[in-house]
């Protein structure tokens, strides 16, 4: 994965600017984190497939996809803010708030679930925007702002709900969590794919997405090029909130209920998956560069490693240690791969 602090250099043969991508593009792809992740995923799939019984069983693939789906969207919601060189510790808190709103709108207000869904998402987006505005107006680092709002959002949620769950959700919604398409594919996975595609379009094909990247990479330059950086940053946080709520609602579907403990105390359980995906995927923590596909694959890889390790039945208390080591091995392998390819390019 491209996780050097410094941006990797896009290599390309000496050529006049006129000439189009052509060979460079394909080579750039071979060097990219995305390709590295794909290789790793294939390798580990084979390994686990051989080493364990049931890794490739349709049930395991189904649950794997379902778990990954949620982690992917969580990762994307963090990515949306990392773009600006900031971060959003409140993803979990926002997610839970959205989920509980959704539950309340259905059980307490009695709205049909699609409308409640919209309500939940709207709230999430709003909370995200609050973060963004606070960051822009105060000029404080998003870390400290979202640290505080995480506590506030979550606290208010617990205060209002008294930690009571909402479980009177309509079948038509909760079945999304259990349904198996073609025996192995969870609808949630499809949602995750759809969301990812939407983000790809945003960052590659819309001015706003490009402005988000520019504003994140170098605010001063972006401003002097006519980008409304403040507004863009707020939008990034809003997007993050929105994505967090999507993830949360996917989790609601999966758990068949909206529960305050869904993301743990203060929603902190989400932080790990939130960062793992993007960073493995080659998103620059300093901002200005994202990889949606990378985040997708990164989250997938981690979920896969966990699942595989559990199936390997290592002494129950040692799984975590092994996961860490596997993770290290994974990034080191990939690093070696890039060095090799790069050295080949030079001469």
């Amino acid at each position, binding site marked *: 994965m491209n996780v050097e602090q410094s941006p990797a250099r896009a290599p390309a043969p000496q050529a006049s600017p006129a000439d189009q991508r052509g060979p460079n593009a394909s080579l750039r792809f071979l060097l990219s984190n995305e390709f590295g992740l794909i290789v790793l995923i294939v390798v580990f799939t084979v390994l686990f497939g051989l080493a364990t019984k049931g890794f490739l069983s349709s049930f395991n693939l189904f649950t794997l996809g379902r778990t990954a789906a949620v982690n992917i969207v969580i990762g994307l919601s963090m990515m949306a803010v990392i773009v600006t060189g900031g971060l959003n510790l409140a993803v979990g808190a926002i997610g839970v708030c959205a989920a509980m709103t959704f539950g309340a709108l259905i059980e307490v207000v009695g709205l049909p679930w699609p409308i409640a869904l919209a309500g939940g998402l709207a709230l999430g987006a709003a909370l995200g925007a609050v973060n963004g505005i606070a960051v822009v107006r105060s000029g404080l680092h998003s870390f400290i702002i979202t640290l505080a709002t995480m506590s506030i959002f979550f606290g208010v949620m617990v205060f209002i709900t008294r930690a009571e769950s909402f479980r009177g959700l309509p079948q038509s919604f909760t079945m999304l969590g259990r349904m198996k398409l073609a025996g192995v594919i969870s609808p949630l996975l499809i949602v995750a794919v759809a969301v990812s595609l939407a983000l790809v379009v945003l960052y590659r094909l819309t001015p706003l997405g490009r402005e988000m990247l520019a504003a994140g990479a170098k605010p001063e330059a972006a401003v002097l090029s006519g980008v409304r950086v403040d507004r863009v940053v707020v939008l990034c946080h809003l997007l993050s909130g929105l994505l967090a709520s999507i993830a949360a609602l996917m989790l609601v579907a999966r758990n068949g209920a909206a529960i305050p403990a869904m993301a743990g105390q203060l929603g902190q359980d989400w932080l790990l998956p939130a960062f793992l995906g993007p960073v493995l995927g080659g998103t620059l923590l300093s901002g200005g560069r994202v990889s949606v596909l990378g985040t997708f694959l990164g989250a997938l890889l981690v979920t896969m490693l966990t699942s595989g390790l*559990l199936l390997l039945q290592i002494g129950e208390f040692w799984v975590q240690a092994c*996961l860490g080591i596997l993770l290290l091995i994974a990034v080191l392998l990939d690093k070696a791969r890039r060095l090799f390819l790069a050295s080949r390019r030079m001469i």
Partner: protein
Amino acid sequence: ADDTKVALVPGGPHPYFAAWEQAGKDAARDFGLAGADYKVPQKWELSAQNQLLESLLTQGYNAFLIFPGDPVGSVSTVDELVGAGAPVIAAAGCLKDPSDASFCLGTDTGHSAYLGAKELIKRLPAGKKRIAHFTGFLVDPNTQLRIDAVNQAAKEEGAEVVQVIADIDAPEPAEEKINAYLAAHANDVDGIITTAWVPAVTAANALRKIGDKRIVMVGIDHDEVVIKAIKDGFVAGTMLQNPYGQGYIGSFAVDKLRSGCTVKADAPWKKNALTDHFIDSGTVFVGPEQVDNYVTAMQGITKDLFSTFEKTYLNCPS
């Protein structure tokens, strides 16, 4: 039966469940199971537990004893397991009805807190009985039950809950907050009830530290620190639970359920805030008197429960 592979799955790494491992082993030996293994989620996270359970099913475990990571949140996973033909018993804590779990074998968290509070208040000197309540994460619905139960007991006995300190399941904040509380309010409180493991340990230590035997404290569970504090008179007693019994009897029961037995509808089920199919695995108050042989006491309870368990709660094809 010898094809039954039971998995005993706690909510996460926690000393409370340590006894399950032995219980499982014994059960597997005594009832000739293919296995009854203690499987611990890596983190105390609902998603981690769910992922482990799914994996275990894939690994061929066909009967489950589960401490629900969340009374509501775990229901769907349990339903899936049962749907896949693996009977599930909620152990130590219950699932909220309705769920496909056969029944709940454990401690009525609310009730045990209630009893504990009663025991505490009983021991308070006459006068206004001011008690402080230290408990775990608020996001855990059981915490709300405990808070309500303690308030309930207090109301009945004319005592007053002057402060509730929650969200202290981690040692550092627990130590910080409890000491801070005692530092400021040691004289404004007569009794302390703790309804979670870590607060119990920390509070016991704190009282020992300020050498205060005036404040009466009732703890929970069997952590060495608490037991020792009882012996030394810093803690009045603790609400003991019966993890071993849960593990042992639970494994026995799921095996039966796999081999054709069904749950008796008309059994003397207890009700609690979460479910109507609740079996009390035994909670007893252990004071200085009983503290030395609480283990045997617990084994006693387990034996009694076990001896009548099958015919009380199950219909089995003879």
